[in-house]
Each structure stands twice: as structure tokens, then as C-alpha cells.
């Protein structure tokens, strides 16, 4: 009983702390937007070119799958800071000095993660009710048929998301940008898992269950329907199969148990996380990070050695500071640009540079289409963590007050940081640019240039506005997956998949880049004014 009270207290406090932040409003706005997108057909559940009548079962399944799919992706980034916040505020060390167990702490945080995600689910469930009532294609309202998919599909998926976010936070190497990027691929893999394996049990999102129920029904209920089932983000018109009234998934005991099993898996994941959780012991974090391959003991020794070295007695007053001439305080922007570049690239190991260099050389050596296609795509995802720090680094490391009290930050440091990001994009993709220039492909070169400017602009804008790098990491990897990797025209900011529209899209990306830089500039100037 006492343990439950502790779990409840941890979860409640964390939840209240989150929902009292302005960023929570943005979270709810995102949920409302998803509901709007589903209601207006921007995101739709399709059977080839058709959709069924908006019965309670159809609307419930559609909105719950939209929720499961998108909230599990974006929600992960939203909730993946429960432990990190305690680490940054120092509260973690206070809690670690109490009898609180690792399992109780993490279960409390899991509850909070889950509650935040559920609040988004509730908003979308209400949106589903509104969609059916406003569409009025079927005036019979069946609350059970509408809400059951939320209970049995969405909630277990949210539990999984909440647990995975926690699990990622307990591993040092998954805590940061690498974990954010990995989540996207893991999420994609999870969505496609039943399709890949043919096992409907391996379906955390529930989409396969809907497929197995809906497609056979459509084959008999929609004349002319052959195949096709998708949850689509598209503006292409869809035909309403007027006579097709899908009654929903049959909620047999077996189905319900298979769905609730995911909640149990989530619980097990939390227990696993508690096994690896360092309980805010920095010595364990350092040892696990392996960044400098030192043991915790060696780390402590190093600190002691550092302290004693720095504490040697000497007469400070015998050291005189040379007065600075006023002209030394007006150095050019080049030095600052170099400093920003050094800062951006600091901390990467030799193999990171080796891969970037290998991709660069390959761009020079490979055929043009490969060079500007898959190789440029890879070259422009490899430095994602360099870019994601743009604009967010100051908030992440708490250096805002040091920087924002310096003169001419906006005309000097802001563009220097952006240019450093652009230079990283230009150098890592230089091979493709040279090949395009040699082949005389002006449009391709323009698209390449637009990409060079677009990437740091997106990073800077999201970093400055959010104060965290994870939104860029999540959004950029999704954009990269759809555009450069899957070559969807319009989404490919490298320009290689845009065919005859290359110039048009390049100009659009340039326009977007300018807008993003403007937005970042506006926000940073407000920050400098303390507003």
C-alpha cells in the first residue's frame, strides 16, 4: 500500500509539473490538430480509393489508429524527459538519498508519461465523437463501438510508448540525440512488424487487426474493391462506399487479451528499465557512457587529481592581467564563425569523421544519380546531431545568461551559428555538388544549395523556439525518411527525387529556409530582450 502511495505521489507530481507548462498546451494543440486532420480527411483510413461510411466503428477505428500512429511517434519525444528533468534540476539526487526504490520511481514516472499521452488520447476520442456527429453519415451513435478501439488499441500502445521513453532514458547512449533518431526507425519497424512477420500478435499499434477485420468485409461489401488498406496523409479525393457499413473489430476475449498483453509488456519494460537505471549516480553514468573509456574509479581519481592540481598554493596577486586595448574588442566575424564550428563539431570521435569522410569520397566516386541520391541522403543524415544542437545548445547547457549578456549576439553569434551548420551541410555534401556542377545540372545544384540552407534553418528555428534538440531530431528524421530516402517528390530537400519540378521545389525550400531563419531571429531577439 505504501509503495502504491509512493508511485502515485511521484507520478502525480511529475504530471502536474508537466501540465502546468506552456509546452503542454502545444501538446494538446497537436492532438486537436490531429483530430482536425482526421475530421477533414487530411489523414484518412482508406481501402484503396474508398472509405466506408462514418459509422461509430469506422470513425473510432480511424481516429484511434491516427492517434496510435502519430501520438506514439510524437508523444515519445514529448514525454522522454521525465528522468532527465530530475537529473537537470538536481531533484534526482535528493530522491536518490531517500529510501525510494528504483522500481517505484520509474513506475511513478511511467504513470506520468502515460497520463500525458492519455490526455492527448482523450482529446482525440472527443474529436472522434464530434467527427461522427458532424459528418452525420450514420446517425446511430454507438459509444462502445466508437470508444473500444481507443481502449484496446490506443491505450496499450500509449503504455508501450510511455515505457519505451523511460527505457531510453535509463540508457546513457539512448538518452540523447541518437536515441531520438533510433526511436523513429524503431517506431517504423513496430508499425510494419506484423506485415513483415505475418504474425498479427506482433502488432503494438493494432493496425493489423483492423486490416484483418476490415479488408475481408470490404471485399464482400464494396463492389469493385480489389485490395488496398492504408492510413494516408494525402489530399487525394476518396470515394465513399455508400453501402459499406463496417461494424468494427470483434472484441473477443482472445483479441482483448492480446491487446492487454501490450500493457503487460510495457510494465515489464519499466521493470527492465529499473534494472539499468543509474539512480542518479554520476559515477555509473560516466562508466556506462564509455565516452572516454574510463572507469568510475578512474573518473573519481581524475577529479581528485584535478582538484589537487588546481588547488596548489600560488600567489594570485602576483599575476597581472594585461589591459585590453579597445581595438581588440572588435574582431571580425570569421573568428566567431570558426569558434561556432569548433563548438558544433567538438566531442565527436574519430569514427564519426571517418564515416562522414567516407560518404564524401563516395559522392565523388559514384555515378551521379547515386551520388546526389542515396549517398547525399546518407551524408545529410549523418551530422543530424550537429545540427540539432543549433539554437538549443544554450538552453540545454544553461549558458544563455553568459551569452545573452554579450554585445551584438544577434548580428554576430546568431548568424555564425547558422553558418556553421550550413558549412557542415556544404562540406558533407560537397561531392554531390561538384558532380552536379561538372555535369552542368544547374537545377540540381540550386536544389543542393537550397538543402544546405534549409537544414540549419530548420534546426535553428526549432532549437531556438523549443529550447530542445529533440523536435528537430524527430521531425528531420521523419522528413528525411519520406523525402530523400523514400524519394517522395516535394519532401526531398536534396532535390534528387523532384524530377522536372526540381527548380520549383528548390525555390520553395529556399523560401522556407528564409522564413525559418526569420522565425528563429524573431524568437532569439525576444529572448535577448528578456521576454
Amino acid at each position, binding site marked *: 500500500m505504501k509503495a502504491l502511495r509512493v508511485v502515485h505521489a511521484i507520478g502525480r507530481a511529475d504530471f502536474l509539473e508537466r501540465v502546468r507548462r506552456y509546452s503542454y498546451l502545444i501538446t494538446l494543440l497537436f492532438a486537436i490538430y490531429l483530430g482536425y486532420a482526421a475530421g477533414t480527411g487530411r489523414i484518412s483510413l482508406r481501402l484503396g480509393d474508398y472509405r466506408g461510411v462514418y459509422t461509430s466503428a469506422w470513425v473510432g477505428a480511424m481516429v484511434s489508429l491516427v492517434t496510435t500512429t502519430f501520438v506514439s511517434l510524437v508523444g515519445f519525444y514529448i514525454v522522454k524527459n521525465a528522468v532527465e528533468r530530475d537529473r537537470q534540476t538536481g531533484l534526482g539526487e535528493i530522491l536518490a538519498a531517500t529510501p525510494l526504490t528504483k522500481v517505484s520511481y520509474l513506475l511513478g514516472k511511467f504513470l506520468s508519461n502515460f497520463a500525458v499521452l492519455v490526455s492527448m488520447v482523450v482529446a482525440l476520442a472527443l474529436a472522434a465523437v464530434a467527427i461522427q456527429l458532424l459528418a452525420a453519415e450514420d446517425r446511430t451513435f454507438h459509444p462502445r463501438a466508437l470508444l473500444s478501439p481507443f481502449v484496446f488499441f490506443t491505450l496499450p500502445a500509449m503504455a508501450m510508448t510511455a515505457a519505451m521513453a523511460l527505457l531510453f532514458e535509463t540508457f546513457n547512449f539512448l538518452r540523447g540525440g541518437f536515441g531520438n533518431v533510433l526511436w523513429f526507425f524503431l517506431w517504423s519497424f513496430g508499425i510494419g512488424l506484423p506485415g513483415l512477420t505475418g504474425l498479427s500478435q506482433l502488432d503494438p499499434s493494432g493496425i493489423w487487426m483492423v486490416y484483418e477485420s476490415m479488408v475481408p468485409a470490404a471485399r464482400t461489401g464494396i463492389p469493385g474493391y480489389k485490395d488496398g488498406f492504408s492510413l494516408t496523409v494525402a489530399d487525394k479525393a476518396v470515394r465513399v462506399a455508400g453501402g459499406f457499413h463496417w461494424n468494427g473489430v470483434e472484441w473477443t476475449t482472445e483479441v482483448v487479451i492480446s491487446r492487454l498483453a501490450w500493457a503487460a509488456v510495457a510494465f515489464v519494460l519499466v521493470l527492465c528499465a529499473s534494472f539499468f537505471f543509474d539512480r542518479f549516480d554520476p559515477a555509473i553514468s560516466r562508466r556506462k557512457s564509455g565516452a572516454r573509456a574510463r572507469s568510475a574509479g578512474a573518473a573519481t581519481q581524475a577529479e581528485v587529481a*584535478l582538484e589537487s592540481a588546481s*588547488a596548489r598554493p600560488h600567489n*594570485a596577486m602576483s599575476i*597581472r*592581467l594585461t589591459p585590453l586595448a579597445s581595438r581588440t*574588442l572588435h*574582431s571580425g566575424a570569421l573568428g566567431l564563425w570558426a569558434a561556432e564550428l569548433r563548438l558544433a563539431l567538438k566531442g565527436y570521435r574519430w569514427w564519426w569523421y571517418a564515416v562522414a569522410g567516407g560518404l564524401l569520397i563516395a559522392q565523388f566516386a559514384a555515378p551521379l544519380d547515386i551520388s546526389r541520391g542515396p549517398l547525399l541522403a546518407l551524408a545529410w543524415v549523418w551530422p543530424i546531431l550537429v545540427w540539432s544542437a543549433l539554437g538549443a545548445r544554450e538552453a540545454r547547457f544553461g549558458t544563455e545568461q*553568459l551569452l545573452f549578456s554579450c554585445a551584438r*549576439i544577434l548580428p554576430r553569434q546568431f548568424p555564425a551559428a547558422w553558418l556553421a551548420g550550413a558549412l557542415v551541410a556544404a562540406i558533407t555534401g560537397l561531392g554531390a555538388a561538384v558532380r552536379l556542377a561538372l555535369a552542368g545540372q544547374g537545377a540540381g545544384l540550386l536544389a543542393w544549395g537550397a538543402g544546405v540552407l534549409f537544414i540549419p534553418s530548420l534546426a535553428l528555428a526549432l532549437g531556438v523556439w523549443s529550447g530542445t534538440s529533440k523536435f528537430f531530431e524527430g521531425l528531420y528524421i521523419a522528413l528525411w525518411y519520406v523525402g530523400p530516402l523514400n524519394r517522395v517528390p516535394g519532401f526531398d530537400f536534396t532535390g534528387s527525387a523532384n524530377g522536372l519540378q526540381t527548380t520549383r521545389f528548390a525555390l520553395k525550400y529556399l523560401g522556407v529556409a528564409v522564413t525559418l531563419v526569420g522565425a528563429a531571429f524573431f524568437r532569439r531577439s525576444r529572448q535577448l530582450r528578456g521576454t
Partner: protein
Amino acid sequence: MKLEIENVSKTYRGNTQALRSFRLELEPGVLGLLGPNGAGKSTLMRILATITQPSSGRVLWNGTDIEHDPDTVRSVLGYLPQDFGIYPNLNAVEFLGYLAAVKGLDAASARKRIVELLELVNLADAAKRPLGEFSGGMRQRVGIAQALLNDPKLLIVDEPTGGLDPEERVRFRNLLSELAGERIVILSTHIVSDVEAVATDIALIAQGQLVVHGVPEVLLAGVHGKVWEVVVPSGELAALRQRHLVSNTAHRNDGVHARVVAVSAPRPGARALEPSLEDAYLAALAAQRSGAAAQAAV
């Protein structure tokens, strides 16, 4: 060189008033800004450092309003915030080099300056180690070094000695005294001994208002002849505290030696003492609180 703070007020969201019509005029020297926790010291520091804007009033640096032209003061400002971060993957030289570039120092001057500063803050031997390995006190010394990078004319240090060991603390005080000659140094703290050691000027702030401003002697004069030592049994200490302002106690064989601030001898046998700045500080705060309480009662 002059810094004028004219009727500055700051109200945060939720109607929390951190500063109320605060006025002060500063010229070269070390100002010790004293006040209890939550008095508004850090808010004032952030306003002077152009991090926060006042809700009303203005701050003038040599006649220029820093809200409208913040770079005027930023270009000559050295600021050590109460809480600040570092980039853990950089070493001290790289971190200071980065901030030197941000502050606009040319590369050659920055290199020379950084070597001198690291010697000054006793970090020369640890200069090439990642800052992520530094202890709290060492990070604080990096913070002190960065504040001095651009040879500031206005140096603002907010609770700078927290985390420093006694030896480093003494060294930092000496450094501030050395630096004071041709610049304005504002030392914000609630540690009276830090101020006592270096301040040429003292301002006492409480509940967002300036309580008193002047040279230390002015503050001391206020409690002249009002500080006493009395010896009481341990059991009577609580009663003594209820009746009088007790600024210090020490347990001895003959009882508790209490240092009391009172207009007249608190009890027979009380011995008059030379007042310290801490006595003056506590007395001024107590007077401010009772004044505020009386005002609230009216």
C-alpha cells in the same frame, strides 16, 4: 563612468513584485549588494546585465538607457550569474576561447588573456581537461575567468563565492579589490563577510526595496552603542531571542554568550561590544521588517 538605476520595478507573472522603485547611483568601486534570499538581488543583477527588462523605470550606463541600447553596456560588461552552465565537452581554454570570440576579442589577445586568467583563477594545470570533469568550485572559477575576459568596465558577480573553498574565497575577494580601481564592481551576496572584506559601498535590499545605501561606516554608525554581549543559561536563550535581536551565540562553560543588538543593555551585566557589519545588516533588516509590518497593519 556612472551607472544609474532610476525607479526600477520588476513584476513577474502572477503579480510577484521582485523590485519596487529601486534607485541607486554607482561610480567606480565595489558595491556590496546585501540582502536575504528572495530580496530581489538576482533580479536586479539580471536587469543590470540586460538579461531581463524592468517593468518600469530605467537603467542608464554613462547616460545611455540600457533597455534601448543594451550593447552599450554589454560591450563593457563582465557578468557572472548565480547559476550558469558550461559545455562539458570543451576544456577550459576552448570554452573561454569560444566566449572570447562571442565577446569580440581578436584571437591573439584572447589567447594571451586566457592564459593569464587561468593562472589567476588557479586553473592552469587543469586547462586542457574537459569541463565535464570539473568540480563545482572549479566551474565557478571558470565562470569568474569568463567574466573578466573582455576587461570589463562593469563587473557584476551574483553570489560568486558559493562553492569556493575558504582559500579560493579569500583569493577571489582580493581579486575583486584589485579590480575595483577603474571599474564598477557589483558584488551581490548574502554572505556579509564577503562584503565586509571588499566593498567600498554597501546597498541593503529587502523585499525588492533599497533599505540603505552608503559606505560601511554609515551602516555601522546605525548600531553604534547598541551591540551587547550577555551570558545566559541555555534554557533562557529562546526567551532572549523573543525579546531581542540575537546576531550570534556561542556555548561556553559559563553559559551561552549571546551577541545582542538592542538600544539599551538587554539585561544587567551586559557588556558593550564593537558593532560588526553583520550586526548592522541584521538590525537594518529587522527594522525594515517591523516597518513593513506596521505599514501593513495600518
